[in-house]
């Protein structure tokens, strides 16, 4: 990997991946102007984003294109999988623990990745109590990950209470989806 692309920001890698999926040929340099699309990718939540250079990849323990691809896939799955709670509860259920176990294996593999655990609540209940409840939910996941994962995890928590629902419906199905911990990676 000691070539000219060392100086390219990570968005070029996204561009490259996109081009590679279009034509099977390897090492095709990105066409001019493709960086624009890359920047859009860079703004997706949790993605490496602009400023992700080779040194940072190496810091995460990622050295090849294949490893980057694997990481990005797993990171996406990591962020897309929320942990759910019962009403007015911050006890981790068995299914929640299973999800967290998967996250533990990711975090053990990539111990340098920073993770923000967001605690959320459904719309029922009090605004202020729900912030406190959301924090307890985020803490529950953080504690579980810490106690079963690597000791040098960069794990932070933030509670949004009921302020950032993922679903806006007013029924149990919607509420159940909103009582969650959401995970955002920063790398």
């Amino acid at each position, binding site marked *: 990997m000691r070539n000219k692309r060392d100086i390219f920001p990570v968005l070029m890698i996204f561009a490259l991946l996109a081009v590679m999926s279009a034509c099977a040929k390897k090492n095709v340099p990105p066409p001019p102007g493709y960086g624009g699309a890359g920047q859009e990718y860079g703004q997706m939540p949790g993605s490496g984003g602009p400023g992700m250079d080779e040194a940072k990849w190496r810091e995460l323990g990622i050295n090849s294109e294949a490893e980057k691809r694997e990481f990005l896939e797993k990171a996406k799955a990591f962020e897309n999988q929320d942990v759910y709670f019962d009403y007015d509860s911050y006890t981790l259920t068995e299914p929640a623990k299973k999800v967290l176990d998967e996250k533990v294996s990711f975090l053990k593999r990539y111990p340098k990745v920073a993770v923000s655990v967001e605690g959320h609540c459904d719309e029922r209940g*009090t605004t202020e109590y729900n912030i406190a409840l959301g924090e307890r939910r985020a803490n529950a996941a953080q504690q579980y990950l810490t106690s079963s994962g690597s000791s040098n995890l960069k794990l932070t928590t933030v509670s949004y209470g009921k302020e950032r629902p993922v679903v806006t419906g007013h029924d149990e199905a919607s509420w159940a989806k909103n009582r969650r911990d959401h995970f955002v990676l920063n790398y």
Partner: protein
Amino acid sequence: MTQKSISGTAATFFIMLLAFILLGFAQSASSQVTLEISPSAIQKIPIAVPDFKYMTPGQTQLAREMSDVLSNDLNISGVFRSLDRKGFLEDPQAMGFEASQIKFEDWRRQGAAFLALCSYQIQGNSLRLDGTLVDIAGRKMVGSPKSYAGELRAWRPMVHAFADDIMMMVTGERGVFDTKIAYVQSVGNAKEIFYCDFDGNNPVQLTRDNSIALSPAWSPDQSQIAFVSYREGQPRVYGVNVPTGSRYLISGFPGMNITPAWRPGRNELAVALSKDRGQDIYLVSPTGEIIKKFGVGFGSSISVSPSWSPDGQKFAYVSNEAGNPQIYIFDVNSGQKKRLTFSGNYNTSPSWSPKGDLIAYSSGEGGGFNICIIKPDGSGNRELTSGGRNEAPRWSPDGRMIAYSSNKQGGPAIRIMYSNGTGDWQLTRQGGAQELPDWSPRRNR
């Protein structure tokens, strides 16, 4: 739990009080009529508020408008009932203001116990307002005439001041007509802090952070509002100087910094923090120094939403240490805590009344939320609302009214009711969604 009617004894008592006024009982004592009037009295005191009399020719426009504002203030007070002007016999612009010129018998027959006589003069940009309260049954003026002067554009506060004086003369306590109500307004995906006059007029946007702002709390001198904002990622407590708009960080410890409550009589706030992982209520200075950790937390329990007793020696708060959210009272001096609510399994948002005699809170059951009141000793629990989601109660500084968030008439809005559950009107009418009211203290006069 639900007990909406007041006791027959109390009703009889207040009707008798009213009868004393009508019979001119108070006439002999002094020029002041001082009675403890409760908003729970079935009968409100009928008062006539004619158009204000303009003393400078041609300045007629405010005559009706000011009368409307005074009338509305007195209606909102919960003590008075303003009579319909259509029944008035006299031309307000031709009325004499001397006791000898007042047609007591006419006003009595029109049902008025009191008459508010007001006149005004406009000179350039200045306004002078004169008001006299007349005791119709007693056939005399109450106290001395009141005078107010100021800029013409500030005519509303002058009318409110006379309403305050009327309340003072009749009940012995000022009204809340110079107070403001802060609240959270949704603006797009953001939530910002606003405030308006107690009657819903003059809404002002205080924050423009395009973030989530919550939990506004007025300082005891009405000059500052503490609030919670996510503008820097974590929820932190900020302060804003209301007149100047200048902002400052109050509490920015790691973890959550929420639910600020200014301590009465001291320049200190109680806040809920999780800086030591466990949630607890702390006492902090307005610049964020920790003065004290109260130690109400219990293991991984939730501790949030402190509300001070008026003497600043106790606070009510929410804890889930018994398995679900309930209201507790913490005594700062003894360090003892006591569970207050036992009915229902979701009781939050305590608000200690300024008179100290009641604690309002919101109680959730079966998807709905209702405002309840309970005495600090745990007795007298009563539900004041029914239907919809009624949350986040906050007392008016005279303890006669409660502002709260409600969706009972469509979108979430701030509503106000009397502390006995009667009345009930919508304060915020600008559309969108409003929540989390906080009623300011009175301004010093």
